[in-house]
């Protein structure tokens, strides 16, 4: 799915545009990225829900399982580790994760191609 890959950071939006414990979708070089802001920081994974094939992960509920920060797919509730993109409910299923940082009050994303 990673049609385009880039090594450069892309500015997405001001940090205060992100609500705590909620995601948004961003279009980064043609790739739909789901961006989350939690108490611990920022996370970015693919917006594509690999189980349903719909671009919806940014609309899932953010939370935790044990110590793991998570998002649950809004379609059928599979839970993903925001740090790694691994699905915690279905072995072998994962989504691509991307790099994300806050720079001068702006959120920036750098796409990563998962191996």
């Amino acid at each position, binding site marked *: 799915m990673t049609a385009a890959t880039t090594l450069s950071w892309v*500015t*997405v*939006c001001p940090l205060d*545009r*992100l*609500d*705590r*414990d*909620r995601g*948004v*979708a*961003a*279009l*980064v070089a043609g790739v*739909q990225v789901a*961006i989350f802001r*939690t*108490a611990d920081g920022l996370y970015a994974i693919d917006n594509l829900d690999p*189980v*349903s*094939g*719909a*671009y*919806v992960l940014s*609309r*899932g*509920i*953010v*939370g*935790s*399982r*044990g110590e793991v*920060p*998570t998002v*649950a797919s*809004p*379609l*059928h*509730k*599979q*839970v993903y580790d925001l740090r790694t993109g691994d699905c*915690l*409910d*279905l072995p072998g299923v994962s989504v691509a994760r991307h790099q994300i940082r806050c720079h001068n009050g702006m959120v920036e994303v750098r796409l990563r191609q998962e191996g």
Partner: protein
Amino acid sequence: MTGGNVVVIGNGMVGQRFVDALRARDPQGRWRVTVLAEESRPAYDRVRLSAYFDGADEEDLNLHTPHDGVQLRLGERATGVDRSRRVVTTTSGEHPYDVLVFATGSYPFVPPVPGADLTGVFVYRTLDDLAAIRRYAKDRRTGAVIGGGLLGLEAANALRLLGLTTSVVEFAPRLMPVQVDTAGGAMLRRYVEDLDVACHLGVATTALRPDADGAVAALELADGAVLDADLVVVAAGIRPRDELARAAGLDIGPRGGVLVDAACRSTDERIYAVGECAAVDGTCYGLVAPGYAMAEVVADRLVGGAATFPGADTATKLKLLGVDVASFGDAHGATPGCLDVTWTDPAARVYAKLVLSDDASTLLGGVLVGDASAYPTLRASVGGPLPAAPLALLAGDEAVGATAGALPATAQVCSCNAVTRADIDTAIADGCADVASLKACTRAGTSCGSCVPMLKQLLDAAGVVQSKALCEHFDVSRQELFDIIRVRGIRTFSRLIAEHGRGQGCDICKPVVASILASLGNGHILDGEQASLQDTNDHFLANLQRDGSYSVVPRIPGGEITPEKLIVIGEVARDFNLYTKITGGQRIDLFGARVDQLPQIWRRLVDAGFESGHAYGKALRTVKSCVGSTWCRYGVQDSVGLAVALELRYRGLRAPHKIKSAVSGCARECAEARSKDFGVIATETGWNLYVGGNGGFRPRHADLFATDLSTEALVTLIDRFLMYYIRTADRLQRTAAWIEAMDGGLDHLRAVIVDDSLGLCEELDAAMARHVVSYSDEWRDVLSDADRLRRFTSFVNAPEVPDPSITFVTERGQPIPVGGHPSGAQGRQPVALGLPEVRR
């Protein structure tokens, strides 16, 4: 012999149980079964026959389960048995048998008094009898029942409900002479007379007197009294139907019935008898539990087993005319030297008696009138030591309930299905961890259900902790969380989880808390921190579809809509290229909207006078209606007007699950109100309220809750019903499951919201009043607030770009998602419905 042809004569409750039991034990189908049924309908629940007058229909009472290898011949009456040829002859042919089972039941005994054959005299045995009584009762004023036993009192209640001034005549000196003693009968009489049912006890009926047209008009009693009665029900006992067995030359018991041994086998080794037509070692039993035991014995014998009839538990617990009556063991103290402990509370109208052995160490039996809550524990303790001090038991002490754990292993916990304490303990040891699995495993609690509280206690006694924890973040149930939030006045999830939970929350607890906060009235659901708790549907105030687009459902109260509004919906659908479909709830669903289109769509809808339909929320959905008395020539009330009023009253009410409702304008029930959480059906004089119905995965008809209500009384009951549901139900528990799981079920619910047994009604009423005044349309409130509108973009960094993944093709003239048919050739991945969800 463990195979061949079995012919069963009779398809009553016991005959059906025999067939079920045999099929369960004979999975290879070695026995082919032919069932000959005299009635035109398959087996139904005769014990609950009177529910017919509460609105239950044939389907509700149906007990029939189709099985492979079982031929049910309805309306084919057996006329003879030729034992030499081993053939049963019927009204339409012959059926050869290797084994024959009599399950012919009994017939009502009608005393040979003059006039017993007059028009207007009925028996109370079959659904046809009840239907005939109902028809005949129209335009009659007075009714009488001959017989003050269990069935007689049920019949009296039926006549009362049909609007007749009713009397009961009983030859014995008390009501229910078989089950209760003199003092219990006296207490029962007070309850019955309070319902304006006159009791004439200790007197025989000598004649039934006709009017000029030859229909019954009065009863003459032996003491000279004459009672007016346009309709008479005879419920003076039953007699076994043994005429075929007699004609076939089988031995008959001293008081009738096919004489059988402990294996339920007659004097012909190929012929068995079960249920009310059998005289086991000479004794006939008129209750269903012994009949079931016999059915199990014969099924076991047919597959080579050696089961014997265990002797009957004739214990009975029932609710007659709203009164609890129970009787068990040696209720009349027939054991030599036995002791009675009695308790009478005339104020509370409770009578109880325990019969103990001469050394007061062993419980032999008892009678309970007015309060039978101690019955399950007491009945299971018969023959063993008392589980607590007699007075504590009789006073219905809460603590006594916990004594099921003290029962001996041999105590029968479920007498309907002969399940002992030891059977339950074994099942628990084998891994049953809740009541549902115990039911599935042992059948305990699956018939009358009175032992269900004991199953819970036995689970507790075995140390099985039934976790109520909502999820890993909260150790409490939804109900407890509701109380914590309400009582402590908590308004944010972060405070709640900091003080009463752990971690960051999840997709289970966050929507639960969001729903509770909304139910308690905490402003707009998208304000502040609440927004982060909402499921995507509530977050975008629309319904997420499989392709990531959303659907929009404006509210159309009662399904009533003007042409102008209909045109607006059509124009919006056309302009935004939305797939349009009429829903089952009498409104219109518009599919295929992107999140960035939702505010534009709603701007047009709100301007035209529409508001949110809450199709996205765990909230009131619709109140469906038929057209009612306004147009319909059968309607008796304005069902549309009431549906609109109810929908507007409860719109926006957040609950543990969705709530559906409907109003029908007459008993024809075109609005399908009985498949709803609360349904209303018009009567000539008001409204009947039904609760706890649903369609879906496990369809269930709603139960009749209250009858002939004024609109005001109806609304009060619905207010309390909904608020009590919102306060106490589990997450995603529909009202049906909520009531089923409630200790005491519908009776408890009635006690709480009709009789105010918990003193809650004022609070519930106030909570609903707050909801009604604070309602505000969620979509209108979003459109007027730039901050709330901000989230409705597909991409945070490209608000003007539509989501390129949402694309359509055309089918039957409408847009549908590309790859919209998951099983089609488009090669899309299957949806994950049914994939295991692993949760810690």
